[in-house]
């Protein structure tokens, strides 16, 4: 990840606080509401959601503006590693930079899943800036029904 200017962070925090007070009917604390807020403590970039259904785990990464072919994904047993780079835009050719709030630079995240997955059947889709990785649960991780024999 790129380094973040503390002033910029303070500006982001200020905006966040402003927002907390100006919205009347909020149901969640406002800090939960940002998407892609840069340098948010120990949380990495990109932010990740993990979902599950009977057969699959779904890992969603909020990472707009990537070149799809530059995203590296690897799966090993129950962990998924995603890495890539978001190219910084303003290098040299601009005479002034007025706002630079979008995170840029290299990133890498490892996501531990609660059970093993079938690596060979994993697939990924990048759509509207969200990467969704579908990871089928390994056969031994799926719940099994045991039929009770009546003797």
């Amino acid at each position, binding site marked *: 990840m790129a380094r973040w200017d503390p002033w910029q962070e303070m500006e982001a925090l200020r*905006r966040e606080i402003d*927002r907390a007070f*100006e*919205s*009347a*009917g*909020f149901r969640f604390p406002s800090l*939960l*509401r*940002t*998407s*892609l*807020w*840069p340098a948010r403590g120990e*949380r990495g970039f990109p*932010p*990740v*959601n*993990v*979902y*599950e*259904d009977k057969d*699959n*785990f*779904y890992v*969603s990464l*909020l*990472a*707009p*503006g*990537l070149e*799809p072919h530059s995203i590296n994904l690897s799966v090993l047993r129950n962990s998924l590693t995603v890495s890539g780079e978001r190219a910084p*835009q*303003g290098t040299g*050719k*601009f*005479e*002034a*930079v*007025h*706002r*630079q*709030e*979008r*995170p840029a630079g290299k990133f890498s995240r490892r996501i531990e899943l*609660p059970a093993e997955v079938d690596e060979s059947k994993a697939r990924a889709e*990048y759509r*509207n*800036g*969200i990467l*969704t990785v*579908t990871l089928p649960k390994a056969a031994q991780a799926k719940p099994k029904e045991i039929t009770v024999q009546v003797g």
Partner: protein
Amino acid sequence: MAEKAVSATAAQAPGRTREATRAEDRYVAPAVDIYETPEELVLLADLPGVGKDELDVRVEEDVLTIRALSKYPAPGEVLWEEFELPNYFRQFELSEAIDQEKISADFKNGVLTLHLPKSQKARPRQIEVKVS
């Protein structure tokens, strides 16, 4: 020149009141980059989860408004959640230095790129000095 051209404080007063009246929906200001070249301002905004049809970019009374609805149906039960997808709203005041007729937009992979060309008047011009 720069700060005048785009006051990125998101058109403070009108923006707030408008946002407050829409408190039912949750709106978040998208992160933006704004760069300036001799010919134009380039604005990039992160709008992940937004489809092309849910994006509304308009200029009205010298105010550029970006509004977008994000949509991402959860594929299953939530195990871990670091982000939620909000709706996006942000406004910028445009100065006269921007040629509003020629603003162009491009939207790809959740990033909106706006090109805001400077009007002829505002562009730097070299004046040739004739030596007699």
